């Protein structure tokens, strides 16, 4: 069979189970788009390459499967970069395919030429510049393997236009390279961990995205309950442990609850699984849990001892570690420790005194949670609303909170919600955003309208870059600069312009019934909710301090 490079690429994507691709065509990827004409793959035309990248991320994050996005050379690539970097920091399996000008022209500063390989070196798990159509037969399977194996991440394949057009004879198609089962963690290591856990009087579980990637939720719950270990998660770990479980302490770190950070500070053993000791989670590394031993389990060996020396380093799969530890460890009621944690919790409630302020953002979230479908997938943008969701919106299952954690990309929410909606047509998608974040990718309302997606976009609108304003209030002498928007657009009218239902919520009316109506109606909508710019995300660890030094209740 004679096929060109573009046809080979699209055929391989089909064979690897790709059903949907998000992207934007341009000069350097036209052959790839031409090949899509004859393909079963559905193409989602985004309105900006960053949108396409985050749509792919929404697909990948909500399913755990590798998703693909497509861009042209030059500006197509530079627009895509933020979404790739975001996928790298949050370990999202993604394959980005970019068109490049003809290889024979590379280096000549041709129209829309950019050094895609060089630019994406540091923000991909790996990247390829393809030099011949024949290479595609090995590179594409490798790209998927790299994206999915071990700690997942984004892989970029840059395909010059002449390679896309090069015709070769194909007799054998490569198979998708199967993921090797990670080597089982040695029983010796597990025994050491179990012994440390036996000796510990005040252990805590510190878990993150690794639990979700390894599908370790069930066994995590079993271990926590068997040995009665309180659990805190990172932002990426939300959903790996049910929020309504009595051992759950929410997120730790910069905006964790006081009692959570205090419990960590008092603990004598941190069982850290699938986490990377990010500064927002552990605060000042030297001050973090000074009196605790640390068992660090991670599939990526470079994360172990990177920022914090562990007492016991276990390189391996989170689920495997949890299974083996659970099998060996005895039951333990840990009454004294759990009572201590409970006392800390009672003494340090989150958002005390807001009960009678229905328009407080946290109460808005709680009202929405009470009304909304419990199976909904929650997406957030970045800022105060994101932190309020992380603190207060209950997340019960893996892959039901999609949020840009490591890179903290404003503009993530809407396109990620589109990706989630495309892959989960039976589910309601709720996208919490702010008036700052939504404007960073608002053009994707057009893509949302194209496919009539069931996304409820909820803007908590305080007319500010709220989280930055908060930092200026708390740590920059209340000197506000560049955080108040001079004008505030009419978001419901904008949504209408895109053909999307919308509503301007007012607390003067029966807003609960109105929200109920809006959230349960079929189809997408945008809801603008005014909030007070003086509301803060609390508590907060003061910059440079240990997590136990917190400001605000």
């Amino acid at each position, binding site marked *: 069979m004679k096929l060109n490079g573009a046809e080979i690429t699209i055929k391989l994507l089909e064979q690897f189970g790709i059903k949907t691709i998000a992207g934007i065509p341009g000069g350097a990827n036209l052959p790839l788009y031409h090949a899509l004409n004859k393909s079963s793959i559905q193409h989602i035309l985004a309105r900006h390459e960053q949108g396409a990248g985050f749509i792919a991320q929404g697909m990948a994050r909500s399913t755990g499967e590798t998703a693909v996005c497509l861009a042209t050379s030059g500006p197509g690539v530079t627009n895509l970069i933020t979404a790739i970097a975001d996928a790298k920091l949050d370990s999202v399996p993604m394959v980005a395919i970019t068109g490049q000008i003809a290889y024979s022209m590379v280096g000549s500063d041709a129209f829309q030429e950019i050094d895609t390989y060089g630019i994406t*070196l540091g923000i991909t798990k790996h990247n390829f510049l393809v030099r011949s159509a024949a290479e595609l037969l090995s590179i594409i399977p490798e790209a998927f393997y790299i994206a999915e194996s071990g700690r997942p991440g984004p892989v970029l394949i840059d395909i010059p236009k002449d390679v896309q057009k090069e015709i070769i004879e194909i007799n054998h198609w490569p198979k998708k390279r199967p993921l090797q089962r990670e080597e089982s963690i040695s029983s010796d290591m597990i025994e050491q961990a179990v012994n440390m856990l036996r000796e510990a009087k005040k252990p805590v579980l510190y878990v993150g995205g690794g639990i979700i990637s390894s599908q370790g939720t069930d066994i995590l719950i079993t271990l926590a309950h068997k040995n009665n270990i309180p659990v805190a998660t990172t932002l990426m770990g939300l959903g790996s442990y049910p929020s309504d479980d009595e051992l759950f302490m929410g997120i730790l770190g910069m905006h964790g609850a006081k009692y959570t950070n205090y419990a960590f500070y008092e603990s004598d053993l941190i069982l850290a699984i699938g986490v990377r000791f990010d500064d927002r989670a552990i605060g000042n590394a030297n001050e973090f849990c000074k009196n605790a031993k640390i068992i660090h389990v991670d599939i990526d060996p470079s994360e172990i001892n990177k920022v914090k020396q562990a007492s016991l380093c276990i390189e391996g799969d989170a689920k495997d570690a949890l299974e083996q530890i659970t099998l060996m460890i005895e039951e333990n009621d840990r009454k004294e420790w759990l009572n201590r944690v409970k006392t800390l919790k009672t003494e340090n409630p989150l958002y005390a005194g807001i009960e009678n302020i229905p328009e407080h953002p946290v109460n808005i979230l709680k009202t929405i949670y009470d009304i909304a479908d419990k199976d909904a997938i929650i997406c957030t943008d970045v800022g105060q609303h994101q932190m309020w969701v992380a603190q207060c919106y209950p997340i019960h299952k893996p892959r039901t909170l999609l949020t840009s954690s490591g890179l903290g990309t404003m503009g993530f929410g809407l396109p990620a919600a589109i990706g989630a909606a495309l892959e989960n047509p039976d589910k309601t998608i709720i996208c919490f955003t702010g008036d700052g974040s939504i404007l960073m990718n608002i053009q994707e309302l057009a893509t949302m309208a194209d496919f009539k997606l069931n996304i409820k976009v909820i803007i908590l609108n305080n007319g500010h870059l709220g989280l930055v304003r908060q930092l200026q209030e708390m740590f920059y002498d209340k000197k506000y600069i560049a955080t108040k928007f001079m004008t505030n657009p009419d978001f419901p009218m904008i949504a209408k312009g895109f053909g999307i239902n919308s509503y301007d919520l007012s607390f003067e009316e029966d807003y609960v019934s109105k929200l109920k109506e809006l959230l349960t109606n079929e189809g997408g909508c945008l809801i603008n909710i005014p909030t007070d710019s003086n509301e803060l995300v609390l508590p907060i660890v003061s910059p440079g301090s240990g997590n136990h030094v917190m400001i605000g209740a």
Partner: protein
Amino acid sequence: MKKRNVVIKLIVNNHPGVMARITGLFSRRAFNLEGILCGVIGDGTHSKMYLLVNNDDRLEQILKQVNKLYDVVEVTLLDQYNEDAFSHIGEVGREIQPEIQLRKAQ
């Protein structure tokens, strides 16, 4: 006595972008790189690289990060090496003669 520097020997896939990948890792992670010797080996599909790095507490992290790179096939840490191979870089009047230096280093 602990040596000030050590050498990391790498076998890497040989393609035009591989050098950028290795040096890019060092700049991105703020690792110091004191010297490089590099050349193609065997049938041309692989290259051998010698990286001169500080022997400090970041070494473990450097080795782990280098090991993670898809293009890196083999990593060896050499604490015994011919210091002459790197010592004349930057010295006026004692310019390097790669063929001699490389032979010594091996």
